[in-house]
């Protein structure tokens, strides 16, 4: 996946409403009206969010059915998750070190307090 696409994906995911829409779509395809129901925002506002998701490749909308169902594009989410994977491993390694370091710090503090 091209990384400019990746930034578009991250940008689209930065909004809580769009995340909630995706979480709903993860359960199955849905119409715009159905998607708008749980939110206290207007239908045009929901449509705007859907456009952002669509441009980021996170959803597609049916062409044929009149209600144009929205569908999640799991592949785009997976590609972004794959991209994040090395960063997750780097953090895991950092937290291993944090754990080791804080054990040592506490031992020293303990010794110092004994020396007092």
């Amino acid at each position, binding site marked *: 996946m*091209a*990384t*400019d696409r*990746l*930034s578009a*994906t*991250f940008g689209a*995911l*930065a909004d*809580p409403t769009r*995340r*909630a829409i*995706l*979480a709903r779509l*993860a359960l199955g395809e849905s119409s715009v009206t159905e998607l708008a129901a749980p939110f206290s925002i207007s239908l045009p506002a929901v449509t705007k969010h859907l456009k952002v998701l669509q441009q980021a490749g996170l959803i597609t909308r049916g062409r044929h059915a009149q209600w144009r169902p929205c569908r999640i594009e799991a592949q785009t*989410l*997976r590609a*972004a*998750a*794959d*991209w*994040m994977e*090395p*960063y*997750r*491993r*780097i*953090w*895991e*390694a*950092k*937290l*291993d*070190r*944090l*754990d*080791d*370091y*804080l*054990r040592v*710090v*506490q031992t020293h503090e303990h010794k110092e307090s004994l020396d007092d």
Partner: protein
Amino acid sequence: MTETTPLPPDVLITRTIEAPRELVFAAFTDARHLAQWWGPEGFTTPDATADARPGGAMRLDMHSPDGTVFLGGGTYHEITPPERLVFSTTILDDAGGTLAEFRNTLTLVERDGKTELTLSIQGVYASPVVAHYLADMEEGWTSSLVCLAEYLAR
């Protein structure tokens, strides 16, 4: 910022750290601590700076075992000692340009003198070249782990 639902591609890491949470919190906000642990095994971050207040900057340049320096920065967004910290981290190029940015939410819960750490990481921005940087960084620490394993096996 409103809480967001954890959803792929967010990374969620949970750990139990054998330390009180005040100390774990300080490890993320005090440059003297950050310099000691920031970076995978074998890396050093000698010049860490951390201005731990909302909008305050952090600078975390990691030196890999082979001498490569990976420039990194960050910004603190929300600071609620000793339980919650929201901060962004960036990977920078040699000219100081942002190659990637992540938003990290750290939550600390104390239980029986230990700390349950939850770190949620969201991607914010990724430039086209950053995948190579991450791969190089990972190679740096993987090779240092291999060296360590070989050393221990001797």
